[in-house]
């Protein structure tokens, strides 16, 4: 495991974790820089096990893990002081008001009771629960509960915030608020975020970097912008009118044309210039309303990675 500790958020080196006959993490090695990290993977790929390993909640069978420069085996408690965790489960105590719940979370981290209460009010303001802070938590909506858990996780101003499926079961408005908060914390509040989700648009809205796991192994890792690389010679085109004749001409010229909704995905022959698209449009008196080089979507990146693994298996 090499590299400057300050430039590494966490690093796993050949970490293996098994539950009986099931291997949840299979010699997983990954090194992640600070920032907003998306954690992707199909069900059973080892996402939750990886999060629990980072928190020191479960002992790995083999390998080494370091979080914020500290060894997970030796300094679990110190690591947890610097991490905020929003679990996937509801896990709210009934019978307490929102502000009490958040203050209690602060006290569990080690904040003095008075500081915890004061800070609870501040973070509840931040997550937009000011008006309902004295209500019992069981009366909160799903979105409110998620934001309450987020408030409890950031009360001690952690260096790393781990969000495990934070938008599950939320309505669109609540989801938008949650994503806005996660994005703001990651990009404007100097807090690294590990965002685990099945929802690729959510990950894309918040994160700069992704890790894709499959069968306990690392499938893909990298900056989202870089992974969504430009496809050379491939273009997205939208016309003002129906472009059947336009498509036909391009096909005759050796292009591969594919219709996706109101968009045409056109792959021009190697060595050809994009000007041929304009020429074909002019020949058929078509107006090009949209023309840009084609990029992979995050969905394609994800599916390709998962399919590659399936083929190898």
């Amino acid at each position, binding site marked *: 495991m090499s590299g400057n500790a300050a430039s590494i958020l966490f690093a796993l080196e050949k970490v293996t974790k098994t*539950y009986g006959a*099931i291997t*949840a993490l299979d010699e997983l090695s990954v090194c992640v820089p600070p920032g907003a990290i998306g954690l992707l993977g199909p069900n059973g790929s080892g996402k*939750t096990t990886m999060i*629990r390993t980072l*928190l020191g*909640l*479960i*002992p790995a069978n083999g390998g080494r893990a370091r979080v914020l420069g500290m060894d997970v085996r030796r300094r*679990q*408690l*110190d690591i*947890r*002081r610097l*991490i905020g*965790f929003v*679990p996937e*489960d*509801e*896990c*709210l*105590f*009934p*019978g*307490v008001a929102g502000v009490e719940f958040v203050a*209690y*979370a602060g*006290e*569990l*981290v*080690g*904040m*003095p*009771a008075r*500081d915890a209460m004061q*800070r609870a009010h*501040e*973070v509840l*303001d*931040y*997550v*937009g629960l000011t008006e309902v802070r004295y209500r019992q938590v069981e009366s909160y909506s799903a979105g409110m509960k998620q934001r309450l858990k987020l408030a*409890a996780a*950031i*009360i*001690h*101003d952690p260096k790393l915030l781990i969000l495990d499926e934070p938008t599950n079961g939320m309505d669109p408005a609540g989801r938008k*608020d949650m994503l*806005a*908060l996660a994005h*703001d*914390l990651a990009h404007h*509040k*100097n807090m690294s975020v590990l965002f685990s989700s099945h929802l690729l648009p959510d990950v894309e809205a918040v994160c700069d970097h992704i890790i894709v796991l499959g069968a306990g192994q690392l499938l893909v890792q990298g900056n989202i912008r870089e992974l969504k690389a430009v496809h050379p010679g491939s273009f997205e085109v939208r016309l003002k009118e129906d472009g059947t004749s336009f498509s036909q001409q391009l096909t005759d010229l050796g292009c591969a044309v594919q219709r996706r909704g109101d968009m045409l995905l056109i792959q021009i022959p190697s060595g050809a210039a994009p000007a041929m698209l304009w020429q074909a449009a002019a020949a058929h008196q078509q107006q090009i309303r949209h023309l840009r080089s084609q990029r992979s979507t995050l969905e394609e990146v994800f599916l390709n990675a998962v399919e590659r693994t399936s083929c190898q298996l």
Partner: protein
Amino acid sequence: MPIIDQGYQHWSGRLTGHRWRWLAITRHGVKIAMRSYFLRYVLLAAWVPALVLVTTLSAWGLLERKSKMARTFIQFMQFMNPGVVADPRHYCGAVWRLAYGYFFHVELFFAMILILIVGPGLISRDLRVNALPLYFSRPLRRVDYFLGKLGVVVTFLGMVLIVPAVIAYIFGLLFSVDLTVVRDTFGLLIGAVAYGLLISVSAGMLILALSALGRNSRYVALLWLGLWFVSSVVSSVLTAVHHQQQRYVYHPPPTSSELMTRQGPKPLTMNDAAASTAKKSDVPVSRNWRALLSYTTNLSRVGAKLLGTNAAWKQISLLEPTASGRHRLLARFGGPWYPWYWSAIVLAGLLGLSLCVLNLSIRTLDRLK
């Protein structure tokens, strides 16, 4: 206004160390439990015996000062012998021990009720709402979690067992003739505090173990009732049967010829049977293990040793003019006479079992969902 525009301030305060982290759990648990009106009423009721204890010790101090008012008050106490009242200074230690013995006898009942109210939900509720990640994703060890939960039980039991015992002791000293009474009774104070801690820790660990067995606190409450109530009933029934058998050992049933002449032994009471047993040996009913089946009797037996109540009864029984009178007094009030360490072993076994259950039930999150 978008919610993110409402700002976020970084926090630069200092976090405390791990040593007292469990106190946060205890404080929170006590705060939540105190919201129950029923619990508050039970706490109020549980302090009535404490008032009686304070009054008794204070009155005994007045009696030592030859106050007529106190003498009138003391006459109402059933265990008083005229010889005791005649020399209150000499019997001060014994009377204090007996007063504490009665106090703990009554408070043990309230302690069981308090645990029934406070204890069942301590861990089962966390299991039901999946709250363990909330605890263990923070800088808490399992031992902190258990200590914090145990602290809730110890706090409530301490409020009705230990605190009143200490306050009563202080009042007793204030009303005494001189401070030499400290020499005679300081061991009692230590014993009372130790007994209070024993009840709190033993019962606390037991209810935590039961609470860790399930997610439904009602079932846990039923288990606790079973442990307390049913074990006491079973123990009492078996003890009664044993006493009945003892009666036939020392007074065999009448033969047919005796029945013909109507001269068989007259029926004995249970106390008579115990007293007749006592005559045979110096330690009455010395190997009767049946009381061990009752959880509260085990606590009481170790408590009797810590408070020295049996010794106090022996001292007072010497005032009885006849040997049979002494034996009858001891059989009636002296409590269980089997060796105290039997009960200590039972309680230690239950404590070990509780630790095993807790250790197996709450293994952080090392399992698949």
